[in-house]
């Protein structure tokens, strides 16, 4: 193992870690404030009877509105906003970068990440993802990062994945999040993390042996990543795909090889005979090129267009999306050969999308991020704030099986208690790892001293005015607090916490 300048620097930096961090984080928070994170002086929430369409777009295409987002979207219009989001490099993201680019372990090639401790890597990966989701202006991009991270799920706890996921996050997920689907799958197929997670690295078929290929990745490639189960492949196709992939491996100990940080191809482990995948022949002797042929064949199969279209529509519109929208999206997939931007345009500009307000349940991560955004809370995503995420069963990159965290509602129904406790802790500024001061929001929303009227708060957090039942529910709180401590910080905290705990805020 090399002793590098980096590890030396790291250990010297660690000795002063406490003092440096707190001072540094204070500076980062102040910088963020100056760079546009501050709560505007006036907020005009949408107080219509149903959720405002602009608010809806912010909730669905991203992780929900921060104070000021709604005004900006209104000023340029939904179409222009969407185009900006589809071209994230045009959006300056300095305030977010200052917070999220501090994590040294995330910037190294796969092989070099072994210099870091597992706990550091695990924490920094999660902190980075959370900070990006909370603070990035590139909200659609971050949403797609989340989407593909589930689609191409990798569990850090398996094998060496924790060392390899940072480079997968950069070079597979983030690199192709709004790019081309086939390139995304091709990058994933030989990503060191994926080779370890789904055992591709030990998929070998040596000559003159009885080696049988390891089918694990090949099966998930067809079942979960591209075509979907029962959509036109057979067990024989899985075996043929595994043969195509045999020989691709990764070895962190190859420190003297030039390509030590990448997956590499071992011809002596590759089954170089001819294959037939989904009825298409791959001639013998293709060698390392077999994986390209395989990925092309499965990604251009109509089942893949339909499977990905369905999954995106379910994610952005409804768990039972209208068939014609799915069809239109699948057609776009085929026509553009998997251009992800084009798919998102079809979905997010559709009438079905515009009228689907409040139909999706926020998963715990989105619930937390949207609460942190709406409150303009200050966080550096340290352990204190990751704890509730784990409690709700949504620790990032820690889903054990390759299907990724579920999009369906039922598996998350056991999380309500923890959602309520997070909301109440956040609103009363007791949540470890977060600082929240309600006063700037209170002023921006035109709050009057002593008032516990939930209407404007509700409109700010939910995107519509509360119904009569919802107003009625808060009467208990008003009468109870009203007697002794009208408008006291505790009363306001309880009210905000309850709005964030309400059924309406669990949905988007």
């Amino acid at each position, binding site marked *: 193992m090399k002793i590098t300048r980096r590890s030396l620097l790291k250990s010297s930096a660690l000795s002063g870690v406490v003092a440096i961090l707190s001072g540094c984080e204070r500076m980062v928070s102040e910088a963020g404030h100056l760079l546009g994170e501050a709560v505007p002086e006036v907020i005009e929430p949408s107080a219509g009877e149903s959720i405002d369409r602009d608010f809806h777009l912010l909730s669905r295409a991203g992780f929900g509105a921060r104070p000021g987002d709604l005004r900006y979207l209104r000023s340029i219009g939904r179409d222009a906003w969407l185009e900006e989001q589809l071209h994230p490099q045009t959006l300056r993201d300095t305030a977010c970068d200052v917070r999220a680019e501090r994590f040294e372990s995330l910037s190294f090639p796969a092989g070099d990440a072994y210099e870091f401790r597992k706990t550091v890597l695990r924490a920094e990966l999660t902190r980075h993802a959370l900070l990006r989701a909370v603070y990035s202006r590139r909200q659609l991009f971050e949403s797609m990062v989340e989407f593909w991270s589930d689609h191409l799920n990798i569990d850090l706890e398996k094998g060496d994945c924790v060392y390899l996921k940072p480079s997968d996050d950069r070079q597979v997920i983030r690199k192709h999040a709004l790019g081309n689907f086939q390139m995304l799958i091709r990058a994933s197929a030989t990503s060191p993390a994926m080779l370890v997670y789904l*055992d591709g690295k*030990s*998929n*070998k*078929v040596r000559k003159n042996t*009885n*080696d*049988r*290929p*390891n*089918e*694990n990745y090949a*099966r998930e490639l067809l*079942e979960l990543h591209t075509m979907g*189960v*029962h959509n036109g492949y057979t*067990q024989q196709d*899985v075996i043929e795909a595994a043969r195509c992939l045999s020989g691709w491996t990764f070895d962190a100990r190859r420190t003297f090889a030039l390509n030590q940080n990448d997956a590499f191809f071992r011809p002596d482990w590759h089954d170089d005979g001819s294959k037939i995948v989904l009825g298409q022949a791959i001639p013998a002797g293709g060698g390392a090129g077999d994986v390209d042929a395989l990925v092309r064949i499965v990604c251009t199969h109509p089942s893949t267009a339909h499977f990905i279209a369905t999954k995106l529509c379910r994610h952005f519109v409804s768990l039972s999306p209208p068939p014609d929208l799915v069809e239109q999206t699948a057609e776009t997939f085929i026509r553009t050969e998997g251009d992800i931007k084009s798919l998102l345009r079809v979905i997010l500009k559709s009438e079905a999308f515009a009228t689907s307000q409040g139909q999706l*349940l926020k998963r715990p991560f989105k619930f937390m991020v949207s609460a942190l955004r709406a409150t303009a809370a200050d966080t550096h995503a340290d352990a204190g704030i990751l704890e509730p995420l784990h*409690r709700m*069963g949504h620790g990032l990159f820690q889903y*054990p*099986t390759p*299907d990724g965290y*579920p999009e369906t*509602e*039922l*598996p*998350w*129904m*056991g*999380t*309500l*208690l923890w959602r*309520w*406790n997070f909301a*109440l*802790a956040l*609103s*009363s500024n*007791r949540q470890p790892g977060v600082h929240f001061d309600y006063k700037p929001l209170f002023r921006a929303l035109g709050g009057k001293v002593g008032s516990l009227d939930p209407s404007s708060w509700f409109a700010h957090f939910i995107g519509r005015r509360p119904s009569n*039942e*919802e107003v*009625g*529910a*808060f009467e*208990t*709180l008003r009468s*109870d*607090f009203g007697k002794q401590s009208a408008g006291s910080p*505790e009363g306001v*905290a*309880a009210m905000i*916490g*309850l709005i964030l*705990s*309400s*059924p309406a805020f*669990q*949905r988007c």
Partner: protein
Amino acid sequence: MAGSSSDSSISRLRFASGEGSDGDQTHTLICIFLRGGADTLNVWVPYADDAYYRQRPNLAIPRPGNARDAAIRLTDLYALHPSMRPLEEAFKEGRLGAVQAVGMDNTSGSHFECQDQMEHGDAADGEQAGGGWLGRFLRVKKRVRSPLSAVAIGTALPESLRGAPSVSVIERIADIALKAPIGDASVLKSVLGSLYGADSTLLGEHGRETLSLFQRVSELQEHPYTPENGALYGKDDFSAGLSEVARLIKARVGLEAACVDLGGWDTHFFQGSASGLHSERIKTLATGLSALERDLKSYRARYTVIITTEFGRRIYENASLGTDHGRGFAFTALGDRVRGGRIIGGWPIEAVDESTILGPGGILPKVDFRDVFAEVLSSCHGLSPEECAAVFPSAPLTLIGLMA
């Protein structure tokens, strides 16, 4: 000693939940799901089968004998993995048994599909009954039901409990409390009660469930838990989950079904033999269960444990010293009502013919998993044949003889 303090809280709880003495006799079915497709051939080792040793030159468990890593002899045909030693006694007492070659008609080899199918209790082809098999049982078997009739340990609701009248998903009993910014939480609960009370969706239903859960368990939280008879649970989540289940059983809260998961069985790679990855999982399983047995020694008439997995693995090992997805597996049951001390059926072990469409090289399934589930339900919860048919509408429901 620990018993006396919890006894008093138990009676208060029973009073609080308005449950009669009937609740005292509730039988609890503890369902353990080994996620990932467990290699049961290396748990219930068919040491009399030469093919097993031929096809697993590196992974087979050595035949019973004096070697330290040898399998533990049970019958003329079968032995136990050495890491199962804590449960050997239960087998000898006739409380632990297995059914060989249990499986389903699904040939996809997909974890998710097979887990779903098993938890739903459906056939791959044919009409689906809707909901999970435990959920349907809790609906079909009509009786006065405690609000804590079904508990899942973990963070996600398992599919098997889908559709149950009431389900609580918890990690620890002690976790359950609403933390108010100031004062007590009653005002907050009242507001949440109105907000979720007005919501007619699944979300509203679970919000109301969560609020009543506070009430149900507040009494149990007042004392730390000391297992009886010196039972030593492991330090892992699986053992922790089992000890919470034991607590709920002792507390007589009317628990009918408890689900606990144990993952990590997808051993494609470097599975190990008498030691190694797979052995460690078995150790976790056996440690937890033997602690539960000891802890609940005075309550043995009141629970049955079943252990299932979505599919077994292939008989032959692969080139990366692991095993790939197969078909049939050995289903395990533990409890007074189990006719244990034997491994039922499936001998000789037959492999699926690879040239057929049934999917490659696993154990040929000979017993429909739904038959086993149905027999367990009728034994533990007194389901009539008609009720069993309502829970598993399209299953053959042939008697296996696993349960008394």
